[in-house]
């Protein structure tokens, strides 16, 4: 328990240890600690950012989906409208066509009727002439009365 030179030795040793600690121990470890702290903070921040981006993307995708649905509904409605229009148009066209056909048929019928009348007229005249010829064969020359017959035919 005597105070002796151990005191000085201890003081020098302490000084050297502190110097060594300050030079080789403290700075690298605290640097590593600080770097890790920064890494963790960065990681957390980027995680937070990713989460935020995911949220945004989800929101955007739902928006896009919603818009697409709306568009599809619009298109369907438009198509239905167009379909109805097409049907209406076709009906209209069919009616017009039908009328045209009816008109044509009527004209043909009329024509047919007038032709039949003509034929009938001719046949009636022939029949009358043949009758008259039969009657007149005995009395009249057919050739002499041809012009009378012709004017008769015209007057029918």
């Amino acid at each position, binding site marked *: *328990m*005597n*105070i*002796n*030179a*151990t*005191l*000085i*030795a*201890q*003081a020098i*040793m*302490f*000084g050297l*240890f*502190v110097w*060594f*600690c*300050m030079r*080789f*121990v*403290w*700075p*690298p*470890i*605290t*640097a*590593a*600690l600080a*770097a*890790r702290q920064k*890494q963790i903070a960065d990681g957390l921040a980027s995680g937070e950012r990713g989460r935020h981006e995911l949220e945004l993307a989800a929101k955007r995708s739902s928006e896009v989906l919603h818009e697409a649905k709306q568009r599809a509904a619009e298109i369907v409605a438009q198509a239905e409208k167009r379909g109805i229009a097409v049907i209406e148009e076709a009906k209209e066209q069919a009616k017009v066509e039908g009328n045209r056909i009816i008109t044509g048929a009527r004209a043909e019928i009329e024509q047919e009727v007038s032709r039949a009348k003509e034929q009938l007229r001719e046949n009636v005249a022939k029949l009358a002439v043949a009758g008259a010829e039969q009657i007149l064969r005995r009395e009249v020359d057919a050739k002499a009365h041809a012009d009378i017959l012709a004017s008769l035919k015209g007057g029918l």
Partner: protein
Amino acid sequence: MSSEAISSTEYIKHHLQNLTYGRLHDGTLGFAHTPEEAKEMGFWALNVDSFLVALVLGALFLFVFARVARSATTGVPSGLQNFVEWILEFIDTSVRGSFSARNPLVAPIALTLFAWIFLMNLMDLLPIDFIPLIAQAMGVHYFKVVPTTDPNVTFGMSIVVFGLILYYSLKVKGAGGFFAELAFQPLPKAAMPFNLVLEGVNLIAKPVSLALRLFGNMYAGEMIFILIALMGATWASASIGSAVMFGSQILLSLGWGIFHILIITLQAFIFMTLTVVYLDMAHQEHH
């Protein structure tokens, strides 16, 4: 007990004697063989046991920490790195808590003090006769294994701390400011001599109390270990009484040892914290 033949007084004395190397009575250099011889060596002698144990423990601490520092990764730390970082962060937090100025020297001082004193105190938990018996078998008379029970060791550290207190007081406050702090408070300037005595004692008390607190605690703890160890001395006679004594020695050293774990950590922590606080006071411009 190191030997059956010696008395309790001799046993205690033997355990409290450092292995001192210096100039012997006849003028040659060598180890002191008795406490009286060690005393006669005067100041220029070296307590080889304190010195060697302190050196080995300090080197061990720095070796382990420097190895971790060299391979320190910012990724997932290994077990040892984790442990070292845990201690470092603990020191860093307490230094930040009590040291307000900026000085890159303070935290390494705190770490060195804490780890080194803790390891030196830890030697107290080694069985009390273990190292001395080995030393004796190797022909060494004395071996006090706990360096902090040697006042030379505690004063050696506190004197360095005192030097740093003076250095930073002068550097931060200037000679005038430091003198003013010592002379013009706590009483008005008129009472300067009184103030000087008061603050001077206050200043000197810092390193003295720092060293004596650590020394006193460890010395007393060591003393109690020695006294407990003495109980087993009666084991020589095989009787019920001696068996009870032997059993209580085991129980008591276990109990005191467990309690001592707290003391050695606490003393290392107190030495470190007070050093940081004193250095912080040295950096404060005014009170």
